[in-house]
């Protein structure tokens, strides 16, 4: 099982002044977190594209590029890239460059995103939502598969035998399909034989077992290959020394984050009672290392996922708390999970070149 972290960017609270750091400082904080995650043996760091002041990680590949030079083993990924409002050729070029600089550690998670700030920013229309995503995903997969591309569609200029470089040394990039749990997206990922990444933000995560089954079933309708269906799970989480301490630390930042999103989406701020329920058995993996390890192992029993990564830095979480939680995930949770499930597999999917590609293992020891 691969363990890791993801972030949308966070304006941390300065513990001395009580003020929020700048959006520029938030980028440097993120880089520091990735470097630590690598040092403590975590295998994955994902940056989810967002464009708000509170969640300012708008240029994932730039931060990941900086991290490439300061890290050794950790996989550097988007989680997710809002493909609908970006150019698939540009996305590929950026992540292929990242892949070159990191010696084969780049991954793309393609998705629609959970919010639509990028639509007005880049001049796209929401009513084209479905078409934008379908066409751009198709183009991204084709660019990943072929160095020279011929393509035509309705959402960007046609390509006539155009060369797209750089090409990844390992042939192609792992491209995951990110979804919040829609059955249709699940079937799409399976039929395309792409690895799928579920964002689980509320309720009992074990209910995703049915989706995991659906995904494998859809995969099995495709051609025989040496590739295998792969599932990752991203969800909110935070590790502390004790359950009580973890939850007391995470609660105010979770509250601020959810209240902020709720204001824009029309739901009320969370209540502590519900938070405790979610932290005990729901989507929030907030607690002491033993409990979180057990919950990851249990979810693995239901879904058979091979990677789980936690979003720890909601609105205002002080940077030192983020770093402490990352350290506990790597040094305390990971050994417990490894002891139960064994070390991570030695291959990661190489979805479009017909077979898995070897990579360095991320084993910390």
């Amino acid at each position, binding site marked *: 099982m691969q363990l890791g972290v993801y972030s949308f960017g966070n304006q941390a609270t300065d513990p001395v002044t009580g003020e929020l750091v700048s959006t520029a400082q938030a980028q440097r904080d993120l880089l520091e977190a990735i470097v630590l995650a690598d040092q403590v043996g975590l295998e994955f760091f994902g940056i989810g594209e967002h464009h708000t002041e509170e969640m300012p990680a708008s240029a994932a590949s730039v931060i990941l590029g900086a991290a490439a030079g300061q890290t050794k083993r950790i996989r550097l990924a988007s989680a997710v890239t809002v493909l609908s409002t970006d150019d698939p050729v540009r996305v590929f070029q950026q992540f292929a460059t990242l892949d070159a600089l990191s010696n084969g550690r780049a991954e793309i998670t393609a998705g629609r995103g959970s919010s639509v700030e990028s639509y007005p920013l880049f001049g796209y229309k929401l*009513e084209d939502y479905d078409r934008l995503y379908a066409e751009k995903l198709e183009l991204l997969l084709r660019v990943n598969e072929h160095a020279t591309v011929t393509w035509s569609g309705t959402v960007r200029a046609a390509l006539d035998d155009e060369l797209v470089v750089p090409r990844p040394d390992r042939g192609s990039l792992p491209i995951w399909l990110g979804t919040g749990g829609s*059955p249709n997206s699940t*079937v799409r990922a399976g039929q395309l034989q792409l690895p799928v990444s579920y964002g689980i933000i509320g*309720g009992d995560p074990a209910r995703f077992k049915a989706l995991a089954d*659906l995904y494998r079933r859809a995969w099995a309708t495709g051609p025989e290959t040496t590739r295998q269906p792969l599932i990752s799970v991203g969800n909110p989480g935070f590790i502390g020394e004790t359950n009580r301490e973890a939850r007391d630390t995470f609660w105010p930042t979770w509250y601020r984050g959810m209240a902020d999103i709720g204001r*824009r989406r*029309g739901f009320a701020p969370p209540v502590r009672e519900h938070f405790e329920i979610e932290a005990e058995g729901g989507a929030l993996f907030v607690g002491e290392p033993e409990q979180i390890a057990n919950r990851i192992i249990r979810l693995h029993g239901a879904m058979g996922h091979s990677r789980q990564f936690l979003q720890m830095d909601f609105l205002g979480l002080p940077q030192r708390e983020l770093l402490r939680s990352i350290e506990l995930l790597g040094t305390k949770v990971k050994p417990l999970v490894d002891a139960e499930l064994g070390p991570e597999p030695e291959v990661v999917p190489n979805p479009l070149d017909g077979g898995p590609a070897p990579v360095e293992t991320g084993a910390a020891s």
Partner: protein
Amino acid sequence: MTRVAVLGVGKVGTAIARAALAAGHEVTVAGSGDAEPVRFITEIMAPGVGVATAHDAVEGSDIVVLSIPLPKLASLDPEMLAGRIVVDAMNHWEPTDGALPALFDGHATTSEAVAAHLVGARVVKALNHIGYHGMEADARGFGADDRRGLVAVSDDAVAANEVAEFVASLGFDVIAAGPLSRSAAVEPGSTIFAGSFSAVDVARLLGEAGAHAHVAQKVDLAEQFDGA
């Protein structure tokens, strides 16, 4: 036993289909096109439900549940749903749907816009203010201390009570209220939309939202379960 047609097989549609099946109803689901891709999904996500085209599912049903993305409302054929009791379980998610200006034209609430498009349908706003994963997790037997209250809002009192009975069978207390023009009280942004409340608290919140004059009744579940 109610014959339920669920249009839409996303997260919400499959959850409602499972819940209705568990409550002993006959459930048929439909997507936007052929039945086969839908069957592929439901065999795993909601085993036991029937699958048909939208037209056939509606044809054989007592209640139709709409669980499609609201921007796709225009793709529904009003003729197909004329005269039917239609549960509007949809919401406007501005962060992902945009502003829907054409749909809102002249309407204070989305359920009115739904009713205006579906001319002749007996529209009831219901099952929209509970998260899809609460549909099964929060269901409780009649009389349970922590049974949630859900709202059924309509301009048609008979349709509202039919839907109330159906929602009650899924494991919730139901407050039938109207008219649709007041359904902002259960839309995103309302207190009711956000939280999990008892029927008593829901009725109080409806009153605070100015819908008190239109709260038809708290459905008398005991009476219904006795078949009275």
